[in-house]
C-alpha cells in the first residue's frame, strides 16, 4: 500500500486521484512508456517537419534518381529524385492527422449516439441498434472505400483529401464506439453503485454526470488509443490503392503503393516507409495496451 496509516495526517497526504493512480500504473509498464516516448517523438517530427526534414519533399533532383542510401540522402531518393527521408518525415503528418483526428471524430459521433441509445432505451435504442446491425453487415473496408470514392477521394488539395479520409472513417467507425458506450451505459445503469446513488436521492442528471460518464469514458479512451493504428492502417491502405492521399503529398501507404512498381529493381524504396509504418503501428498498439492496463480499475496496485 502506498501510504502507511499512522504516519501521515490527512492534510499532508497528497490527494490520490484516479488519474494519478493510472499514471503510476502506466509508468510501471516499460514497453508502453517506450512506445509513448517514441510516439511523442513522432508527433514532434510531424509538427516540426519543415525544420527537421533535410530536403524539400517535393523537390525533384532529376540528376539523382533511385539513389541508394548514402551520406547525402540518408534513405536514398525515389524515381523522381526526391529525398525519401524527407518524404517519410512529411508522411508522419498525414498518418498522425488521420490516426488521431479520425478517432476524435469517431468518438464525437459514436459517443452521443451510444449514450443516448443506452440511456433512453426503448424504441430509440431499438432503432439505433438496427441501424448499427445493418451497417456492420457491410464489410468495413468496403463501405469505407465506397464512401471515400463518393466523397471525391484523395483528389483536390491535401486538406480536402485528409478531411475526406477522416470523414469516411468516422462514418464507418462510429459503430464500434456507439456499441461500446451503449453496452457500458446499460451495465452501469444496472450497477449497484448507480442503484446506491439513486437510493441516496440522486436524479438522472446527477447519475449521468458523476457516475456514468466517468466510468464509461475509460473504455472510450482505451478504444481510442487502440483505434489509432487501425486508422493509420486504413489511410495507408487507401493511399496504397490510390484512393487516399494523392501525390505529390507524401503518405506512407501511398509511397509504398507507388514504389511497388519499382520493387523489382529498387526494393529499398518500399522498405523504409513500410518499416516506419509497422513500427509506428506497433508503438500505438503497445501504448494502447499500456493505457488499457493503467485505466482498468479492476487491477489493483
Amino acid at each position, binding site marked *: 500500500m502506498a501510504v502507511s496509516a499512522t504516519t501521515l495526517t490527512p492534510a499532508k497526504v497528497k490527494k490520490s486521484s484516479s488519474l494519478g493512480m493510472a499514471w503510476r500504473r502506466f509508468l510501471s509498464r516499460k514497453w508502453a512508456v517506450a512506445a509513448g516516448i517514441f510516439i511523442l517523438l513522432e508527433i514532434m517530427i510531424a509538427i516540426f517537419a519543415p525544420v527537421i526534414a533535410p530536403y524539400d519533399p517535393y523537390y525533384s533532383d532529376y540528376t539523382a534518381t533511385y539513389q541508394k542510401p548514402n551520406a547525402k540522402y540518408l534513405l536514398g531518393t525515389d524515381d523522381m529524385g526526391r529525398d525519401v527521408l524527407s518524404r517519410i518525415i512529411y508522411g508522419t503528418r498525414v498518418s498522425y492527422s488521420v490516426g488521431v483526428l479520425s478517432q476524435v471524430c469517431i468518438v464525437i459521433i459514436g459517443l452521443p449516439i451510444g449514450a443516448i441509445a443506452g440511456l433512453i432505451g426503448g424504441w430509440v435504442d431499438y432503432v439505433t441498434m438496427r441501424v448499427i446491425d445493418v451497417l456492420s453487415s457491410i464489410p468495413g473496408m468496403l463501405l469505407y472505400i465506397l464512401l471515400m470514392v463518393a466523397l471525391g477521394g484523395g483528389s483536390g488539395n491535401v486538406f480536402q483529401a485528409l478531411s475526406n479520409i477522416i470523414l469516411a472513417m468516422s462514418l464507418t467507425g462510429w459503430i464500434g464506439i456507439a456499441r461500446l458506450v451503449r453496452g457500458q451505459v446499460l451495465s452501469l445503469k444496472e450497477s449497484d453503485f448507480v442503484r446506491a446513488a439513486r*437510493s*441516496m*436521492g440522486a436524479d438522472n442528471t446527477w447519475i449521468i454526470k*458523476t457516475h456514468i460518464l*466517468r*466510468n464509461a469514458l475509460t473504455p472510450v479512451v482505451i478504444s481510442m488509443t487502440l483505434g489509432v493504428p487501425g486508422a493509420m492502417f486504413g489511410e495507408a491502405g487507401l493511399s496504397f490503392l490510390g484512393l487516399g492521399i494523392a501525390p505529390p503529398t507524401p503518405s506512407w501507404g501511398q509511397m509504398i503503393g507507388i514504389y511497388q512498381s519499382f520493387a523489382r529493381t529498387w526494393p529499398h524504396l518500399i522498405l523504409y516507409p513500410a518499416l516506419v509504418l509497422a513500427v509506428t503501428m506497433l508503438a500505438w498498439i503497445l501504448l494502447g495496451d499500456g493505457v488499457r492496463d493503467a485505466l482498468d*480499475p479492476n487491477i489493483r496496485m
Partner: protein
Amino acid sequence: MPETLLQTVDLVKSFPIRRGFFSQHHFRLVAVDRVNLTIRQGETLGLVGESGCGKSTLGLTIMQLYEPTSGSVIFDGQELTSMGGGEMQKKRRQMQMIFQDPLAALDPRMTVEEILREPMDIHRVGTVTERGTEVTRLLKVTGMPSDAALRFPTEFSGGQQQRIGIARALALQPKLLICDEPVSALDVSVQAQILNLLRDLQDQFGLTYLFISHNIAVTGFMSQRIGVMYLGQMVEIGPSQVIVRESRHPYTNALLKAVPEPEPKRKRLKRSLLGDVPSPIDRPSGCPFHPRCPIAEDRCQVEAPAMREIGRTMPWRVI
C-alpha cells in the same frame, strides 16, 4: 407503543419476462406478492427466505428503486407510490440502503471522501467545509481510519468496504436503513464486527432497520421481529423469539430445522423438507408451499390460505 415508521399494504412487484427469442407470449414473474408489513420506529424487522423468495426485491420496491406494480408503501405517514420524482428524491434522505456486495456498491473511480460526500452533495447539505468535517465524523463513527478518505474502495478489505457503505448510508441521517444481505459476503469474524456496528449505530442514532438476510440466525440476532418469505409471499411474521421457538408455519419450521447449529449435541435428525424451491414463474396453485409441505392436504392445492393472527404471531393458515 412507538409509532409506525413504514407500512406496506398489499405490495406487489412483478416483472414482465420474455421466453424464447421471438416468443410473443409475455409472462409475468411475480417477485413480491401482496406483502403487508409494518416497521415501528426504532425496531429492526428481519426478512428471511431462500434465494428467489423476493426479499431483496421487496427491499428495492420499498425504496421505490423498483416501481411497485400495485399496493402502497407508507413511510413516515406519507404514501410513497404516488409521489412525484422530485419529492421522492427528497424523501430518500430519510431512507437509505446498504448492499450485499460492498465493493460493487461503491463507484470504483471515486475516493472514499467523494463517496461519503456524494449524498451531501446531492442534497446540498451544509457548506463544503462542513461536508468535509462530516466525512471525518462518519469515518470515525464506522470505525475507519481517518486517512481512508483519500484512498479508493479497492484498497480496503471487504469488511472495511462495507463500513464505507454504512458510513455513506448514514451521511444524510436517515430514519430507516434497508440492509440487503449486508454481511453475507463477509467472513464470520468480520460479519460479527459489522453486526455489532449496526447494533451500536442503531442505539446511537435511533435508527430503524429492515434487515434482509438468508441466514435466520443472523436475522434473529439483529431483529425484534422476523418475517419469513417464500416465493414472493410473506408466510409468517412475528416476534423473533416466537418465530424461532414456536413457529407455526411448516415452511418456517423446515427452515429452522435445516439450519446447522454449531452445537454438536444438538445434532438434529433427518430433515423433513424435500425438493427444490419452484421457479417463481411457474408458481404452484393454491398455497405456493404445498408441493413441499409435509402436512399439505388436498385443499392446499386449490385454495391459497390467508394471513391470520395467532396469538402474537401471524402465520399463514395451514389447513
